[in-house]
């Protein structure tokens, strides 16, 4: 776990840059990276809207989180369905953008991605080091982005 936290610390800037570029491209707005990006023991948090997206390869399994407050979400979406659609697409694209970062690819490899899921208001991904922080759009909307990762674990039914 500590080793994974060290790895994430090394690539934290790549992870935040990918987040900013993804959101900027999809929402077609200028974005900045907030100074709250940090490596944590696990990915947790409560927000109005959370999208999670699972990803894995033979060595690692991870979760991407995209979270936003209700007011911010509705700057870009009129309905709940649109919130899920737009921020789900951000999660989907962010996974690909992470793999475009050479240092991320070198440390973790290529992760295959699942379908984005709406996770109501709370996220929790245990036994996984995480890096998270905010991207701020030109409309002053704070979008919380998280990436948690751990060595591949197989769950067995006993």
């Amino acid at each position, binding site marked *: 776990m500590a080793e994974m936290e060290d790895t994430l610390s090394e690539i934290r800037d790549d992870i935040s840059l990918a987040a900013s*570029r*993804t959101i900027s*491209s*999809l929402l*077609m707005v200028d974005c900045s990276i907030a100074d709250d990006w940090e490596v944590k023991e696990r990915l947790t948090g409560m927000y109005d809207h959370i999208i999670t997206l699972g990803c894995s390869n033979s060595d690692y399994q991870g979760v991407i989180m995209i979270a936003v407050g209700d007011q911010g979400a509705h700057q870009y979406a009129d309905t709940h369905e*649109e919130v899920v*659609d*737009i921020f*789900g*697409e951000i999660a*989907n*694209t962010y*996974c*690909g*953008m992470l*793999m*475009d970062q050479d240092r991320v690819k070198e440390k973790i490899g*290529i992760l*295959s*991605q*699942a*379908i984005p899921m709406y996770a109501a208001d709370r996220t929790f991904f245990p036994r996984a080091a995480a890096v998270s922080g905010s991207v701020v759009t030109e409309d002053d909307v704070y979008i919380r982005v998280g990436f948690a990762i751990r060595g591949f674990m197989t769950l067995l039914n006993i």
Partner: protein
Amino acid sequence: MSKRVVVVDDSKFLTKQIKKFLEKEMGYEVVAIGHDGEEAVTLYEEHKPDLITLDITMPGKDGQDAMEEIIEKDPDAKILMISAVRGDAMLECMANGASGYVEKPLKLKDADFVTDFKATLNEVFE
């Protein structure tokens, strides 16, 4: 006569962007929009378009499976994959019959990206 296109992506937000780009920038006619692989196959058979764009990661039948099914039925089908999936997916799609592959995000405000996107679309029909 303008090219007739079917656009398939599970994100409605993105299909709107793709449709707008294809119609305004390329002069194509988007004749149908779908949101999963099953719809892609059905819409292709129904409309017989000049081009179909496919996302890969979609619920149910994914874009790669849909692509293979369309190619099996129509080996001359023009299929452009538009996806965030990295790694071997692009090579697999191209080896199995895709005419082109564009990586998301679609940076439609970036002049270089738009130029490349247009070039890829033109290459599909060469």
